[in-house]
């Protein structure tokens, strides 16, 4: 589904951050990416999503949908989203004056339009939305609140997964979705993600902690240090990192 080859990237006109990342993700898989602060984990997900602050200096990202490979790097961020690429933000953005329901319905209908499916009217969408909110144990009052404004850290992260549930992406990068969550919120968020998991989609978990991986079992764990993947292995790698840190891998 996603094939990243020798990806090198930096903040526009800044120092290199990614120094040759290669990664292949297939439908149905869950990958975890771990690594110390500043190693390039978040940069990788932002580049996949098309964040304009970063520029790719070499390498390719190929995204395959219905056996049609596409060069992700030439696509606008909104087109990537419409093609089924999703990123849950590490720091979800607050949008004063725009209600959650207006925002979510706009996002949902953009995808419908793009995929040639009929748009949903406000009443049907409301029912659909409330159903998805139950999945994340969210208070229905959240539909009328401004996007992420005055949300707690946990509520913001749940709202990200709610967006994932609404948009039903094929490839999701969850950027430190577990950071700042208490145990209960972590369980709710993880349950939500597990319910969205299927053989047709793939999920990439970017995390500092092994704890999330107790709830969402990865197929592969990668460790990134200084812009390179230094080790890829099964779930046991996460346990090892938990115990020994990253130094032994960076060397």
């Amino acid at each position, binding site marked *: 589904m996603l094939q990243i080859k020798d990806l090198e990237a930096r903040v526009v006109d800044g120092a290199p951050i990614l120094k040759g990342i290669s990664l292949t993700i297939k439908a149905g898989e869950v990958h975890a990416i771990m690594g110390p602060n500043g190693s390039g984990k978040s940069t990788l997900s932002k580049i996949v999503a098309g964040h304009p602050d970063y520029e790719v200096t070499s390498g390719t990202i190929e995204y395959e949908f219905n056996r049609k490979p596409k060069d992700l790097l030439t696509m606008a961020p909104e087109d990537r989203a419409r093609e089924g690429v999703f990123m849950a933000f590490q720091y979800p*953005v607050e*949008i*004063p*004056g*725009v209600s959650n329901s207006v925002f979510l319905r706009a*996002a949902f209908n*953009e995808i419908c339009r793009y995929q040639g499916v009929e748009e949903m009217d406000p009443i049907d969408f409301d029912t659909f939305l409330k159903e998805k909110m139950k999945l994340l144990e969210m208070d229905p009052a959240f539909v009328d609140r401004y996007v992420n404004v005055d949300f707690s850290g946990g509520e913001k992260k749940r709202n990200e997964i709610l967006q994932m549930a609404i948009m039903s992406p094929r490839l999701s990068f969850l950027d430190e979705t577990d950071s700042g969550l208490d145990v209960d919120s972590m369980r709710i968020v993880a349950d939500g993600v597990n319910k969205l998991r299927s053989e047709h989609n793939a999920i990439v978990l970017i995390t500092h902690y092994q704890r999330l991986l107790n709830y969402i079992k990865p197929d592969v764990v990668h460790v990134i240090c200084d812009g390179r993947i230094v080790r890829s292995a099964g779930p046991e790698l996460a346990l090892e990192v938990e115990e020994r840190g990253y130094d032994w891998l960076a060397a």
Partner: protein
Amino acid sequence: MNVSSVYEAVTARRNGAAPDWWRRLRAEGLERFEYLGLPTVRDEEWKYTNVRTIADTEFGLCGSVGEADLNVFATQRTQGIAELVFVDGLYSAEASRLDTLPEGIRVDRFEDALDRDPDRLQACLTRAAVSDADAFTSLNIALLDNGVLIRADADATCTTPIQLTFITTAAAEHALMSPRVLIDAGINSRLAVVESHVSQTDASYMTNHLTDILIGRGGQVEYCLLQSQGSAAVHVGTTRVWQEADSRLEAFALETGAALGRQNLVIQIEGAGAHASLDGIYLLHEGQHLDNHTSVVHHQPSCTSDQLYKGILNGASRAVFNGKIFVERDAQMTNAYQLNRNLLLHPKAKVDTKPQLEIYADDVRCTHGATIGQLDDEEIFYLRSRGIEETSAITMLARGFAAEVLGRVSGEETVKMLKGCLDGYFFEYARRGDA
């Protein structure tokens, strides 16, 4: 501009049918205007707004009245309880509706008021001394002709808006329209008035309106002004308010039209315990210049005023905001708040904003501020990452920016109209792209 010839034309149109005080008032207005002349940028009040184009244009009275199509303005008027329509400066009986007013509420054209209640009309028209009037106010007084007097007797209530619609058509090319509105809200009465200035022409013309609002003790007035003039129009407008004790004013202005626009709002709070809120949104495209000057004068103690004006600017356009709060010596326990915020959607858009406080009392709470900013790139990316195309993302964020001001309007019909006007602005924004 040759004002005396327009003055003579107005006199001729009336054919002498006006009382002496009316003629005297107009003469005083003319004298005052000729004494002051048009303001220049050397005048502090007009520092950022150059009106030389008015001096250079030969504006006259509108010779003939065009055909107005009210349906064109469906989103720029409220479905009011009554509607008075003026086309190219003249009253249109066939377009107006006036039959269903609640008891104690009266809406009269000046012609009718002169017959029925000339004393009241005179009292309202002469509430402020001509010798205090600025140039455009005295110009309006000099050209006094058509107008509306809205009255609420003591305790009378009408919360569905009375709609005043001033339409300009192509027939008004090079014409000067001088609408005059008087709102006289009696003790403990309640009134809602929407004043829409709209256009169906891109011809050059000028509107110079003057609206006076008198709110008696305990009275409440919701007043909404919509300025949606034609793309080549000059619009100057002044609304003056006098508030008695325990009265309440909710003033709202939405300005989106005209090549050159200047809106003045002057509120005199003359009784204790009164409240004034004055909110506004101005929406500009390429080439427009819109100026808002507001002034709230707290004369008496224990009053509050609350002001939020927001501007959205696209293209090479320019907005000016100047908001003054005066707290006089006797106005202890005043609580006054003022904020002006501007959102620039284009690198060539420009705003000059100046909030001003003058406080002569010692026990008051006054805060004011102004901001000028652009949309946050991170917010735009967030929306794009959810499949929302860039222009829609910008529109959604800019609407969010405006939502706070709209949220302060209480009238349902008025909110509907204002939303429709915002839709129109953003539709145009999307059509033009970011140019």
